[in-house]
């Protein structure tokens, strides 16, 4: 076999398990390996989690492994609980490749005060019951294709 002049590098790797849990996030995930892969385990337990920096206390959603404020990489998980307020949303009648089966669906932004969460509205809320400023809670949602995300429900 002819050797490539530019080896991928994996030829030299010892065999090891790749932690690609994040590929379960959303209808189509574009990321598989991340330092916050535990987010998926929490979703499987019905919990939506953010991170808090143990160095300076800054709160992050979406969760981060690294703090831009104090440059610490020591973060702890906290559960998203209570209610937020709907900042805005949009109902899609047209979807990017890979999301056609989900139509129609609404993307939305909810403000919890210390942080905001971007996600989807629960599919069963009638259009005329949605209004900006309404109170919402964030819950884990299992998608028909077995993937996991979270949605906003009326609180």
């Amino acid at each position, binding site marked *: 076999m002819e050797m490539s002049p530019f080896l991928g590098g994996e030829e030299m790797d010892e065999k090891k398990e790749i932690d690609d849990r994040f590929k379960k*996030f959303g209808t189509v995930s574009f990321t598989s390996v991340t330092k916050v892969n535990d987010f998926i385990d929490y979703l499987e337990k019905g919990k939506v989690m953010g991170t808090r920096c143990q160095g300076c206390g800054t709160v992050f959603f979406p969760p981060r492994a690294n703090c831009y404020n104090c440059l610490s990489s020591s973060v702890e998980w906290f559960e998203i609980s209570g209610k937020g307020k709907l900042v805005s949303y949009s109902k899609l009648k047209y979807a990017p490749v890979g999301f056609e089966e989900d139509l129609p669906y609404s993307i939305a932004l909810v403000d919890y005060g210390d942080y*905001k969460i971007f996600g989807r509205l629960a599919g069963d809320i009638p259009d005329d019951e949605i209004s900006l400023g309404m109170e919402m809670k964030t819950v884990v949602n299992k998608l028909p294709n077995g993937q996991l995300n979270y949605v906003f429900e009326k609180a």
Partner: protein
Amino acid sequence: MEKVAIIGVGQSAFVRGFPGSIRELAFEGFKEAVEDAKVSVSDIDASIICSAPEYDKQRSPSGVFAEYLGLIPQPTCYLESLCSSTSAGLRMAYSLVKSGLHEVVAVLGFQKMSEISSAESQERMGRGADIQWESPFGTMMPAYYAMFAKAHMEKYGTTLDDMALVRVKAATYGPINEKALFRKPVTLEMFNDPNHFMSGPVASPLRVGDCCANADGSSCLIVASEEKAKALSKKPVWIRGLGAASASVNMAGRDLVTGLAVARQASEQAYKMAGVTPKDIDVAEVHDCFTISEILAYEDLGFAKPGEGRELVKNKETYKEGSIPTNVDGGLLSKGHPIGATGGSQIRTIVLQLRGEAGEMQVKDPEIGLVHNIGGVGLYGNVTILGR
């Protein structure tokens, strides 16, 4: 203070399905700019190639274009900030010239979007936002801007008709811009006719008519030092103010959803550098990727107070004869939006206006013009002020 000028501008026609490869597309805008500047290709001592990645297979297009356009062995590089790539390129060219490192720099923007389907394009564009935390929800540009539209309507009472009027204005000028993709008039009635394609839903509250279209196109700016500009050009247009800013990629990091913070920050910088105020702007090009985007731009640039942007278009203040003519080349809505070429096309329009060479689109005797060019959903903001 040494000044920096734009001495040549060019763009291809913006079309669907350009019948050639990306290097051939790039040639069209480049040739027009070089001929406009009346320079020889060998006078250009560096090039900056700008586009949004992943619409074609070519990686690192700068080397390919430099060779094809006769710009080797001069240095070249590739620069991107999504839809504002060419404005970012102009900013970089300004620094290269101002520093004395180069005397004449070509900024070339291009995009050939017709190689992929519209749905694939939405997926690419959606991935211009946060792929780890947002794209898995099925995001796309119209839906993000729709969230801004919804919030603006709720807070200020802006209506669907107000937004549609931006399209009606754009379509007033599409027919007189020979480079534009859409050259037919649009009426408010089309938006209110459920059987007309313009009224079709895309992402609430935005409808088909509220959205610009993908296109293929290229644009080019020839930037020169004061000395070179005075030697080479009869009508140099001077770069008087530059502003640029960035924001949180995830909507979760945005505090403002009724305007774009990057546009406010970039315009403040540009006004300060140029020593002018919004009242001094005689003609403007703003990033109307969606109708709501133009209303936000009026407010973010200080042409109108927050919440009052719609009045400008309702009262025809932003028409050619109004107090602040805006997008009188048809804007992105009429021209089409070949992402990497858009900023250069906007800048070209203002340069032609300031030179008095805009033909049927010419506004009366402008001295100072402004370009507002946004990348992503208010992810990158660039504001450029040009003067005679």
